[in-house]
């Protein structure tokens, strides 16, 4: 029998038992909806978590070892020679040093050109790290430069993208001050600062002078609590204030591929340095929690699809038992046992597919509803996503195919029973 005839007969059987078909497709719908909903929820929450804890899988932060064995291993101090050696390590694409600024910088006034309700008398201490320009090159605003303005002028800084979100969602509402405009529109604003000024009186340097910081970009490669200046600016300020540089604070290594990271970490340790797992470990922990939760929910959804398949199998078994005479007639009219088997499987596939399509749509609707409820009930916390769901095309595909496949698997036994019907004995 051709596929056309197969489909015709399967549809005819579905039409003939509309109530059973509705129950079976309903079971598949519930399974598919749960599968689509939970997978999309896992993806959406995962995306939100990644925005909250961004971690580039190719970056490795190298720090001096806590207990240095430099005398034995020739490592310990992160100097230019160490950076050069790190660049030569297998799998390394580049390495950029970072150096913490040991001269205090404080802002006694708000950024210029930005309407914020700066509390009177407030001075904000700004922790600064100097970084090699290459590390932040991809994150600079259009036309912005990240070089030391040795001849005077505003010092370019790059801050964490996340600090804006935290400010907007926590500080601004708490202080009842204006929220900041969206990310890149801030690039170019300037903040008057005092170099050498600390909010801790004993830490203020003998010499304090006015300077300006100009926002050059926003980056996830900068910790949320720091502002990044060009490395040369930090060195210049250290020279101005007589601070000795005893090696870099940190070196950020870029691996060629994420797979190279374990080898690079091992090489780093052999050189006598440590790998700072802080941000990466936090991101990995969050990622693991999200993945495990999503996986568990997906398993529950797959189990629901399995139960739907069992329901379909049981229903089809009963249907086959009730239709043995019809099956025998089909064989008398020219169907082979293989045809009969395929008709039952096609019937199950149709029910599973119909349930899958309905379930995918239902899952999507449920997600829209959940987003609306969340928008109404949840407070506006940092990194709160617009939607808690991710909907790549493969979720809909999976929601449609998994119940269909489960239904077909469930129909194997009733299909085999149908194929064993002996037309001569049954009709007579």
């Amino acid at each position, binding site marked *: *029998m051709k596929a056309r005839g197969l489909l015709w007969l399967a549809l005819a059987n579905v039409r003939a038992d509309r109530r059973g078909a509705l129950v079976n497709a309903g079971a598949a719908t519930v399974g598919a909806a749960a599968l689509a909903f939970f997978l999309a929820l896992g993806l959406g929450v995962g995306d939100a978590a990644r925005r909250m804890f961004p971690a580039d899988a190719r970056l490795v932060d190298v720090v001096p070892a806590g207990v240095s064995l430099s005398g034995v291993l020739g490592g310990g101090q992160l100097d230019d020679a160490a950076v050069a050696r790190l660049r030569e390590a297998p799998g390394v694409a580049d390495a950029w040093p970072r150096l913490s600024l040991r001269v205090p910088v404080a802002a006694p006034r708000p950024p210029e050109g930005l309407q914020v309700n700066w509390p009177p008398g407030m001075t904000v201490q700004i922790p600064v790290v100097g970084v090699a320009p290459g590390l932040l090159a991809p994150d600079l605003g259009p036309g912005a430069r990240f070089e030391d303005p040795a001849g005077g002028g505003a010092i370019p800084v790059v801050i964490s993208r996340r600090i804006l979100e935290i400010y907007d969602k926590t500080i601004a509402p708490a202080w009842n001050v204006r929220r900041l405009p969206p990310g890149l529109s801030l690039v170019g604003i300037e903040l008057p600062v005092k170099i050498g000024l600390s909010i801790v009186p004993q830490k203020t340097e003998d010499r304090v002078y006015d300077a300006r910081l100009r926002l050059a970009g926003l980056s996830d490669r900068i910790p949320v609590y720091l502002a990044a200046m060009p490395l040369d600016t930090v060195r210049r300020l250290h020279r101005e204030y007589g601070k000795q540089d005893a090696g870099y604070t940190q070196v950020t290594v870029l691996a060629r591929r994420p797979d190279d990271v374990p080898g690079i970490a091992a090489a780093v340790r052999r050189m006598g340095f440590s790998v700072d797992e802080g941000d990466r470990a936090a991101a990995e922990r969050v990622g693991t929690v999200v993945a495990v939760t999503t996986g568990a929910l997906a398993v529950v959804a797959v189990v629901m699809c399995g139960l739907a398949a069992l329901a379909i199998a049981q229903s089809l078994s009963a249907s086959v038992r009730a239709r043995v005479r019809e099956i025998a007639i089909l064989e008398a009219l020219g169907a*082979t046992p293989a045809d009969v088997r395929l008709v039952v499987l096609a019937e199950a596939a149709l029910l599973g597919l119909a349930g899958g399509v309905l379930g995918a749509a239902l899952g999507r609707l449920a997600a829209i509803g959940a987003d609306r409820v969340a928008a109404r009930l949840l407070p506006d916390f940092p990194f709160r996503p617009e939607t808690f769901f991710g909907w790549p095309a493969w979720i809909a595909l999976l929601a449609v195919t998994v119940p269909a496949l489960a239904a077909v698997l469930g129909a194997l036994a009733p299909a085999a029973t149908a194929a064993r019907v002996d037309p001569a004995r049954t009709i007579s």
Partner: protein
Amino acid sequence: MISLRGVTKSFRDADREVPVLRGVDLDVAPGELVAIVGASGSGKSTLLYVAGALDLDFGGEAVVAGRSLRGLSTAERADLRNRFLGFVFQSFNLLPGLSALENVMLPGILRRDGAEPVAALRTRAGDALARVGLSAQAAARPGRLSGGERQRVAIARALFARPAVLLADEPTGNLDAVTGEAIIRLFADLAREGLSVLVVTHEERVSRAATRVLHLADGRLG
């Protein structure tokens, strides 16, 4: 069209074999309406199912529509039933979930080469129903038809594939006298058009219309 030689068939009852057919020889030529009569349980239906390629578990030789049933694969037997044989049963055996028209077009749906479009199958099924006088009931489910109408739908279905052989098992058993007579006349007409018609029955009125009447008793035709 039908040639049976030394056909034997037995059923197993507990530990013993119960012979039903004991060397049956039968020939039905094109244009013949052959009636096989016999008591209930005499093996009439069994003989029909052997000739209809529905039961392969028999001894002897059976050639139907020019094909020896012994050498055919499952698919070839199904194709033979689909293209060359038409069945009419006592209990009509229509699919209750399909309309009369859909029941009639089933052999076309099951056709292995399946080249004929569904629309064409519908048209031909409509023609077949018209031939048995049931055009008005084309959309009706079997449950809404009378016994005679159901049997005429079954005959239309049997004739849909333009078979060479028509096999009927007690075709008038569930019909009133008038309807039964009409069915018998239809069978006689079909035989005159060249079909080989084999009817098993225990009704005398069928025998009267047959070109030959054979009695099956003790597993033998006489």
